[in-house]
């Protein structure tokens, strides 16, 4: 199992040379090992091991920021040259320097030393997953298990040298009963937290319960979006609107709404970078992370900034840089987003609940307007599922919906980098068949 610390000499060599050719430089290195098993119906059809290695270099000279990335240790000098060339073309911007080292007072908990990505452990998990799917009518169509262990390093010419180790375990299952499909998944950092039984039982329930689904007439109804469904709209529409870059560039619906009540007074949204799957003490710029309150009391309180956006617009970095931009450069994102609203028994009064959305990525990311096909939707009342709905389309505007929240469920679920409950929205337009 390789680790970023195996490459400390390489990192020092890159920084030493870069320091001679640029005002400042930064190295980001990640290495990873993954093992995954993939189901073809109820048998494992593929077993895969992936060994990842990636080096990103960023240079800054007179406000010109350049970046490049390579998968080959031997090509680090080409990578550095490409970063410097990139910086010469990019327009200069206001720049206050890469961060200095700090002492962290807290630790994160995203590394499970007992988690080793090997085929035997993965086989045990997938056997448990398939076993838990027996008993229903739905048959397994696909799914899989993945185990990962990786480390990342950030170092810069100001003396930062931070490392982070993380592990991951995930399971997913797709089942089908006639033409009724059910899909569920789980993703955790500690092996003991992976709940294959829940994944299997929930997927089978979704396929079996909806096997007898009927049509629904077009109507206006309260809609309950489960965490799975809601996370798609939050990630695709709301989070881009809270990015400082989009706000200042004129691409955010929320740009002029900071400090103004514009959402339900109980709606809360914040990034707690120390608790969750994406937990980290430092962001992709090497800035110490901290809690960031996006929305509280129905009011936008903060936008997210990485270092370059903050310097450009006279703001302070919120520690929100993540490593997902083109060429491995940092860009604005979130680490462990938490969403909440007024707790209520959201399934008591009659409403339509939807477990998934088809086509959420086609939403108008600027206006918040969307139109999606509901997946595993059903009437609910008195806390119970009622008639399952075979097919229905939901149209709405996410920003308007967030201003008219009927309540949030008690139970929260972590989906990717978000932790959120199911949320009930008032009076939405459903187009039936």
């Amino acid at each position, binding site marked *: 199992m390789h680790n970023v610390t195996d490459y400390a000499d390489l990192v020092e060599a890159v920084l030493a040379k870069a320091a001679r050719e640029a005002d400042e430089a930064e190295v980001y290195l990640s290495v990873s090992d993954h093992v995954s098993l993939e189901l073809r119906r109820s048998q494992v*059809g593929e077993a895969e091991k992936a060994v990842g290695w990636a080096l990103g270099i960023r240079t800054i000279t007179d406000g010109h920021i350049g970046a490049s990335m390579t998968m080959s240790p031997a090509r680090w000098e080409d990578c550095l040259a490409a970063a410097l060339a990139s910086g010469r073309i990019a327009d200069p911007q206001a720049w206050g320097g890469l961060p200095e080292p700090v002492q962290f007072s807290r630790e994160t908990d995203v590394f499970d030393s007992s988690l080793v990505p090997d085929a035997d452990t993965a*086989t045990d998990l997938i056997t448990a997953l398939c076993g838990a799917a027996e008993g229903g009518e739905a048959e397994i169509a696909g799914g899989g298990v993945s185990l990962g262990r990786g480390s990342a390093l950030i170092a810069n010419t100001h003396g930062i040298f931070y490392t982070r180790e993380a592990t991951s375990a995930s399971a997913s299952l797709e089942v089908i009963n006639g*033409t009724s499909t059910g899909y569920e998944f789980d993703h955790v950092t500690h092996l003991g937290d992976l709940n294959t039984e829940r994944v299997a039982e929930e997927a089978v329930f979704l396929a079996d319960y909806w096997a007898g689904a009927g049509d629904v007439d077009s109507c206006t109804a309260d809609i309950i979006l489960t965490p799975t469904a809601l996370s798609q709209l939050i990630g695709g529409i709301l989070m881009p609107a809270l990015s400082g870059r989009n706000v200042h*560039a004129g691409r955010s619906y929320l740009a002029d709404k900071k400090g103004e009540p514009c959402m339900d007074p109980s709606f809360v949204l914040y990034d707690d970078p120390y608790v969750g799957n994406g937990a980290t003490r430092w962001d992709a710029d090497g800035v110490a992370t901290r809690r960031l309150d996006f929305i509280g009391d129905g009011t936008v309180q903060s936008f997210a900034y990485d270092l370059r956006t903050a310097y450009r617009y006279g703001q302070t970095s919120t520690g929100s840089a993540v490593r997902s931009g*083109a060429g491995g450069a940092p860009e604005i994102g979130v680490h462990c987003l938490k969403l909440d609203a007024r707790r209520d028994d959201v399934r008591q009064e009659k409403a339509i609940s939807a477990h998934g959305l088809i086509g959420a990525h*086609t939403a108008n*990311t600027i206006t918040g307007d969307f*139109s999606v096909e509901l997946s595993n939707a059903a009437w609910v009342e008195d806390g119970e599922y009622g008639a399952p709905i075979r097919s229905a389309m939901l149209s709405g505007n996410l920003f308007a919906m967030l201003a008219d929240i009927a309540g949030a469920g008690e139970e929260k679920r972590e989906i990717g980098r978000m932790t959120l409950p199911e949320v009930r929205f008032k009076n939405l337009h459903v187009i039936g*068949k």
Partner: protein
Amino acid sequence: MATEEPRYYDLRHLVGTSTHIDIENGTIEAAGQSFADTAIVRALGAAGWGMVIIDNFSEVGDSGLKRAVADALALSQATGERVELADVQTGVLPVPAIKEDPREVSLEEKTELLASIESATRLPGIVNTRARYIESEGTVRFMDSSGNEYHYESLRSGYSILAVAGRGGEMQMARESEHAITGLNMRHKEQKGREAAERALLLLDAAPARGGTMHAILDPELAGVFAHEAIGHASEGDLVKEGVSVLKGMTGQQIASPVVTVVDDPTLPEFGFMPVDAEGCAVKRTEIIRDGVLKNYLHSRETLAAVGSGEAGHARAEGSSSPIVRMSNTFIENGDATMDELLEGCKTGILLKGSRGGQVDPGRGVFQFNAEYGYLIEDGEQRGMVRDVSLSGDILSTMHNIALCGTDRKMTPGYCGKGGQSVPVTDGSPHLLLKRAVVGGRHA
């Protein structure tokens, strides 16, 4: 029981450079290059596939390949499904000629060309412009234990431009993009920037669409997405094999209106072109539907052996990911209806234009996709512009509701996601008349 030697193994190794340029509101945000070197080695053991993906593969050499094959074989012991591979034709097509090689144009000049398009987008009323260029070039080496070995060059490039119009707190956006395998395509394209800006401004005055069931005319771009989402995905052999396609067991049946013929053709010199597929199979034109009858599924060697009824040569992969069955250049063939006949056939309904993408659940047979904008049709004539309009439906019933196909097929490049992998594709169609379409909009 484990085998000591693999029944089969192959290697696909990619070495390449990607270039990106990002310009926003007149500022060059980034312009740079990155380097990839990654490979996948697959080995077929007694049962199924073992696979090893290795970054920085150039440095491991022949001994590294042997070790990777041994690792992949060892991993295959964790599989239970006995995988068989169909015998297929092998061979590689020549890569289409490049008109202007972007590798011979400096990064500075490409940045200037993109900046020129971005600049043309900044019309009065436009509050944000963002232009992006992406280029990926490299060599692909494929070899397998059957003695096949191919090397080919891969080059794709293109740009996109986004314009956001704003007025009194309202914002609307429009996008144009062009991607190609035939070389640099950014010269004299300022008009594309202006078109995006003008449409964003027009959308400020467009009314929200009214949802409901109505007749719809789909423009070639959106109809191409329909061909891809509603038909193409459901014909993918892996989904058929796993039982999650509504088209399972339906070859030879009339599943669509007789005016509908749908083809996937990786040999066309379009954005989804492949000289050979990701497991070394020769590629060829595959008719999925002919005159409304389901003829063929799209296959890999494995799914062809397991399912039959179709053609291999449709395995694709993003980078060094494992090959899966994918579309390439997917289109509905031209019919014989004029635009006047389409409008007359529609009478009252909606014309849907452009695409913001789509998605399908092939097991349920349900699809959804979003137009960029549309026009109401009243008394067979095109009327006012509407925005935020989408279409969803049931694949099998919708296929029978295609009443007319136009004569103006156009191909539109894009990217398709499946199994966490994104690959370049082209979708195409003439204008279509779709009866009793379920159209989404915020107002009843």
